[in-house]
């Protein structure tokens, strides 16, 4: 029992929670834009994977981690563009398209890894390492837990703030939310619904892609097949639990990061818990929290509904 207590009270658990929450949060942030504009983008997983792959490829070819970020984002945004064409321009089923993109990304990245790199394995590449924030890093407990992270954590926090402000406090955000509530009403007011939905979809791709970039260049420093590991799906649940709010997505994602970190710690401890149970814990938590919250949530009225004007 004291082992368990040690795990729960160690600062490194919380540091790991933040690290693990980060890609989920970034994907959820992107999805928040898409869903606020009325688009369900189930393809988050594929966008993360393409982002991670692009980042490793870019970093390997150029030797620059920053170039890796750029290429990773580009790849993810391209996937988002496919989703955009299908769901915004052609009125295709958003869910079906998203699932196809997820499966497609899995296959394409696995193929490209084998086609590009000798031996069929992606190499170790230049990435971003964690650093200590001056002064704060030495604070007791929170220093280790919060202020010894990589650059991505701070970028994500800034993105959360900007997104909240843009979505909730600007005319642009109001119009975008309008498109998710009643696209016909918005169209009749002269609002360019298509353009706004495209913007939301591309932002979604970039954010999810950044989540994948972080997985590749902030953690693993290489690419492995299916490395997004279902985080894109957990992000879908996070959006709902956060009630489509960019700010609430932070604690919601952290909840799942904490569960995953906890599961990892328990596995590597002396506690006698079946490892399979611990591996399933994040997904179990997703279902349980989702089931509690979903009944009371209030999604955008036109969410996922095809809208193509005659």
């Amino acid at each position, binding site marked *: 029992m004291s082992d368990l207590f040690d795990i729960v009270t160690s600062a490194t658990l919380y540091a790991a929670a933040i690290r693990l929450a980060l890609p989920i949060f970034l994907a959820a942030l992107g999805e928040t834009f898409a869903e606020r504009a009325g688009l369900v983008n189930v393809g988050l997983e594929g966008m993360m994977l393409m982002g991670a792959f692009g980042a490793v490829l870019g970093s390997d070819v150029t030797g620059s981690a920053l170039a890796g970020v750029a290429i990773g984002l580009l790849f993810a945004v391209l996937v988002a563009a496919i989703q955009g064409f299908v769901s915004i321009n052609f009125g295709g089923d958003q869910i079906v398209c998203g699932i196809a993109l997820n499966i497609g990304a899995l296959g394409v990245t696995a193929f490209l890894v084998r086609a590009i790199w000798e031996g069929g394995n992606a190499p170790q590449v230049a990435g971003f390492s964690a650093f200590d924030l001056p002064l704060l890093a030495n604070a007791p407990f929170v220093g280790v837990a919060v202020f010894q992270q990589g650059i991505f954590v701070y970028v994500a926090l800034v993105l959360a703030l900007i997104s909240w402000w843009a979505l909730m406090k600007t005319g642009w955000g109001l119009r975008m939310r309008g498109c998710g509530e009643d696209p016909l009403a*918005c169209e009749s007011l002269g609002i360019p619904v298509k353009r706004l939905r495209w913007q939301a979809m591309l932002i979604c791709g970039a954010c999810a892609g950044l989540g994948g970039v972080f997985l590749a260049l902030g953690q693993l420093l290489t690419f492995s097949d299916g490395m997004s590991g279902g985080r894109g799906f957990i992000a879908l649940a996070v959006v709902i639990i956060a009630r489509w709010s960019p700010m609430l997505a932070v604690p919601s994602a952290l909840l799942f990061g904490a569960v995953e970190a906890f599961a990892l710690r328990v596995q590597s401890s002396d506690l006698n818990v079946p490892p399979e149970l611990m591996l399933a814990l994040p997904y179990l938590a997703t279902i349980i929290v989702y089931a509690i919250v979903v009944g009371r949530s209030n999604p955008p009225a036109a969410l996922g509904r095809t809208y193509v004007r005659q």
Partner: protein
Amino acid sequence: MTALVKMSGIVKSFGETIANDDVSLEIAAGEVHALLGENGAGKTTLMNILYGLTIPDEGTIEVGGVAVAPRNPADAIDAGVGMVHQHPLVVGALTVAENFSLGGLGDGSPASMLEAVADVVQTIPLEVDPRARIDSLPMSLRQRVEIVRCLAHGVRVLVLDEPTAVLTPNEVQQLFGEMERVVEQGRSVIFITHKLAEVQTIAQRVTVLRHGRNVGSFAVGDITSAELAEQMVGRELSDRSAKGAPRAAGAARLELRGVCAVGDDGECLLDNLDLEVCAGEIVAIAGVEGNGQRPLADICFGLRVPDSGEVLHDDERLPQLRDWGHSKVAIARIPEDRRHEGLLIDSPLWENLRYGPNLSAKRGLINRRHEVARARSLLEEFGVVPPDPMVAPSALSGGNQQKVVLARELSSDPDLVVAVNPTRGLDIGAQRDVRDRLAALRDAGRAVLVISTDLDEVIEIGDRVGVLYRGRLETPIAQNAVDRARIGKAMAGLLDDQQDRAEA
């Protein structure tokens, strides 16, 4: 006469259907111009074209002497055209101020939005809290928000698509007053309607559309209502109502005692409602949409359990539709939304007709030939065009769809009929058919309950007439004792003695 709007040779087809066939239209500055026609005559399509929501196949448009080709509403708004749709296109989840801002007022920050609204309401009165969420407002106010928003944009031409459908008689008067003020400023109003009386009251000129063609434009003073009706339907229309005088009503078939319903947010939807519908009578309930019609209908259909009080059918508890064996009780349910609740819109008619209480499956197998033959004879009996059991309801007009619903529901020989807005959206001919059908049921000793937002319909077909206002029912009184003005007041909640009447 200077034409403010000139549409020439407009053609628009949707697949096989030609919605507008070489339609031309001229609107003068400073007039209320009515666009009259039956449902499906192409009125709304023509105006959607003017407003850029629909792109025409052929034809030209001029506004104020300048040729325009609006590709979207933004273009039309720039040209000075504003349109208020039949179902107000305001975003329900947003506040009044946010909806104004969506239309381009203010820079989107909450403070600027409230400021912009304050500016607007100084010149155009709008008695509503700008912080109120749209979906908390009644239809009339939502419509008002949309009209004011259009006017605030300085439109020269205001298109109103059947604006009176959601209003009480009193609110209609207010709307007409507003329309007069607008045209006094030299702007024009295009007023889409299928109600002749409204044309005579408010419009200076009227253009009649029939089957997508322009039948003619007339000065309202030069043409009588009867002539207009003839132009509209293309034949002479008899005024007759097949309905005879009511006979003595029999035993109570449907009884509601002290029924209350509470909404999701704890608001009172139905307040201690008593109602009795007897064999051989039609009870008609009037009221503006959103005053409890929906929960009342659902309770009478057996779709909703009242939160208190009891609902009896032939002195026994009314079975819920989800109860096993409910179909043994012969109640005909004619829902308001035939496309979504009344029919499987894309399944063939014979399947639609088969979903009734009287399934004839032997050992679980459907005898398709038998079913198709039965469907054909039902379709012929109810005058559905075409009487083809293989087509889907989506290929039929609204009137024919409604006849299919009636055919299915009445084929089980029900002793109680509950109908909600049974003639909404139907043209005059189909309306007559449906009302005659309900009258015939009454004459055959059935009990009929009609819940309708159309006051004319309620007065025409009801033997007893009641009014639903904010979940309270004014006890139905005999039709020949009805005072129209008084009902109008009751619909608007303006009766001083409302309290006393409800308790009496």
